[in-house]
């Protein structure tokens, strides 16, 4: 068994109430790593065509990577992988904090949930043992309450606080963009993973573990040295130092000046109060205490307090840039404390913030343009900046009360319900889910990476304005149609490899890039992996996810973005720029670069053979 793995998977059949241990072969570990890759492998092999995402037949996989819990920086990471009820395709949502590390240290590389419990339960994992327990006492509680109640219930004097991943009311009610929350504000957000958890009547997973992640005996010193180098490089890069000193909110002003901040559902580009949402202002104005994730060397995550004004007394996790953008300029709100409040509420309800924010901003635009009235929204006056109305609406959505029932299906379906021009205003990608919270019209790398994504979030790394020498992209690709497509093909493989290692992406942008990660991986596992093999792992994962999605009807037209995202901004740095004239050609160039049929988007036989996926060729042939 290579270092970095326990070699044990826990399978939980919630219908039968049985728990079994399984092993995973070293070949699968090396081919798929863990995280997204291992989850995709399980999903592909166990979820056949026709399985509804919210049915007992769907799988919900909590998977760690080889680095998870190993002491590598930012290695509290885990992935939640399932068939998404929001998109109908595969989704992999990552979260950080401590939960993933403790799950691994409790003796399991992954937990596979199948079936559905007849009544609410939670899984308790403790140092190699696991039990299903009644969740009646926490059912209907919000995520933070659930965490506190279960952590205190299982905490023993002298032992560390148990770590909890759970759903809130949104997940219980199967809101299609419900999330999984852990460690008081870390969220596996995308694609409705919380709804799948709710459909299985699984409220939470509680983990306690103080084991050690095994390190290859012959390379312990090399592993320690690799960790030191990784930490140094992570904190030395521009992105890393920004996160360390200012949080991701430290990116607000640079993003704004580049035209990347969404304003009023992308109807505007100007936001006068941008400096109040920047990390410089926030860290000077709102006192906070460091609250780092497992093994994270950065002062990124903090518990912060609001000491004055309407939200005085609020103590919450310092919001990320996207939280601030989503509940700030995107909904016409100029008070950062109000954005903190809405972020805290979104997390407590267990909603994916990006879907919630672009849904609310769509409704506000529709109200402004007369497509909706307060009468359609249970009397709520959803005008720009009306934070109180947003809060009431979010609670209605999470509980599927009144109009919340109609809105619980996300941006795309809400736009169809509204009708008229609403679909032209909605911000979504593929078959209908919200992208990350930027004005993506001026981020071609990101928007393209969302449009062609196989896993429900950004698949690659936006290299529009910086290069990545480790993968042969020495200079930023800018607004070049070929450059963006080719960079996505290369960076997608890098990103999916990283997402399978079990580390936070914020520590993966140091100067050493993949070389540093692979050096540490080889020392941990005892392998002799090359950079090219690492990229091939990422490529294999993308292809496997692609085949899974094709199984559920994915076609070329699903690699797409909404009309709003194709409109050129009228002003600002991105004025006049639009992907519309180039998108079809870019998609074709990308398909060719990936070794896919440029007309159908299906992986070619020779590509599958090169990646060792030849046994899956039959699946493609059947579809054709």
């Amino acid at each position, binding site marked *: 068994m290579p270092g970095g793995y326990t070699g044990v998977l826990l399978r939980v059949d919630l219908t039968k109430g049985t728990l079994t241990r399984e092993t995973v072969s070293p070949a699968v570990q090396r081919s798929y790593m863990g995280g997204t890759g291992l989850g995709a492998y399980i999903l592909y092999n166990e979820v056949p065509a026709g399985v509804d995402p919210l049915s007992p037949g769907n799988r919900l996989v909590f998977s760690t990577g080889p680095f998870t819990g190993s002491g590598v920086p930012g290695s509290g990471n885990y992935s939640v992988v399932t068939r998404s009820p929001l998109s109908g395709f595969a989704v992999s949502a990552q979260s950080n904090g401590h939960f993933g590390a403790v799950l691994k240290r409790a003796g399991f590389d992954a937990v596979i949930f199948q079936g559905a419990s007849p009544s609410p339960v939670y899984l308790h994992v403790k140092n190699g043992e696991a039990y299903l327990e009644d969740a009646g006492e926490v059912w209907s509680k919000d995520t933070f309450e659930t965490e506190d109640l279960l952590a205190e219930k299982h905490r023993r004097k002298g032992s560390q606080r148990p770590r909890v991943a759970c759903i809130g009311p949104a997940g219980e009610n199967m809101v299609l963009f419900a999330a999984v929350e852990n460690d008081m504000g870390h969220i596996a957000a995308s694609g409705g993973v919380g709804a799948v958890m709710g459909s299985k009547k699984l409220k939470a997973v509680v983990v306690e573990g103080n084991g050690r992640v095994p390190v290859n005996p012959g390379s312990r010193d090399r592993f320690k040295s690799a960790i030191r180098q990784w930490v140094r490089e992570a904190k030395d890069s521009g992105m890393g130092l920004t996160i360390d*000193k200012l949080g991701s909110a430290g990116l607000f002003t*640079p993003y704004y000046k580049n035209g990347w901040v969404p304003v009023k559902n992308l109807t505007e580009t100007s936001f006068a109060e941008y400096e109040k949402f920047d990390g410089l202002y926030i860290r000077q104005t709102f006192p906070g205490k460091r609250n780092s994730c497992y093994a994270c060397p950065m002062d990124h995550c903090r518990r912060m307090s609001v000491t004055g004004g309407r939200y005085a007394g609020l103590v919450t996790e310092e919001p990320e840039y996207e939280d601030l953008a989503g509940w700030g300029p995107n909904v016409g709100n100029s008070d950062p404390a109000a954005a903190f409040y809405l972020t805290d509420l979104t997390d407590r309800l267990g909603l994916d913030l990006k879907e919630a924010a672009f849904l609310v901003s769509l409704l506000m635009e529709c109200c402004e343009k007369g497509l909706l009235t307060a009468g359609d929204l249970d009397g709520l006056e959803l005008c720009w900046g009306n934070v109180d109305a947003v809060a009431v609406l979010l609670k209605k959505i999470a509980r599927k009360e009144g109009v919340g029932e109609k809105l619980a299906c996300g941006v795309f379906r809400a736009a169809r319900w509204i009708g008229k021009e609403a679909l032209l205003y909605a911000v979504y990608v593929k078959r209908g889910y919200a992208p990350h919270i930027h004005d993506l019209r001026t981020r071609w790398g990101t928007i393209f*990476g969302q449009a062609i994504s196989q896993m429900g979030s950004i698949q690659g*790394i936006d290299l529009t304005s*910086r290069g990545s020498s480790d993968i042969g992209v020495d200079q930023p690709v800018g607004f070049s149609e070929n450059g963006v497509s080719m960079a996505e093909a290369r960076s997608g493989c890098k990103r999916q490899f990283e997402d399978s290692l079990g580390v936070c992406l914020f520590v993966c*942008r140091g100067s050493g890039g993949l070389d540093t990660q692979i050096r540490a991986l080889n020392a941990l596992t005892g392998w002799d992996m090359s950079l090219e093999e690492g990229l091939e792992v990422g490529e294999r994962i993308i292809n496997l996810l692609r085949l899974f999605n094709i199984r559920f009807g994915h076609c070329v037209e699903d690699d797409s973005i909404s009309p709003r995202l194709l409109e050129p901004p009228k002003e600002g740095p991105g004025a006049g720029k639009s992907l519309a004239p180039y998108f079809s050609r870019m998609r074709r160039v990308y398909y060719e670069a990936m070794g896919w049929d440029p007309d159908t988007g299906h992986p070619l036989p020779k590509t599958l053979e090169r990646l060792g996926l030849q046994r899956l060729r039959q699946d493609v042939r059947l579809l054709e």
Partner: protein
Amino acid sequence: MSEITVHFLGLIHFLTGQAETKTGISTDITLVKLLERLAWSYPELGHYMGDLDCRQLFNNKVSVLVNGHLTCDRGRVLSPGDKVVLIVPLCGG
């Protein structure tokens, strides 16, 4: 003497302690010369940027926009009146 205006955003603002500066020039200068001057004037920024000849400078340390356009050319000639913006290299995802 004429001037170049340099805007510092995000982390660069944090390191220099100010949002912008104006630097006087008597003739055209190259981008790397401007960065050398800034490194000398703002030691924390200089320490952060490190070796200005490093191949990774524009990928890991600093992105430079001249009059709104990104440049990775150290030899780019700057003229009086140019507006330069320094930010950390941003990447999505």
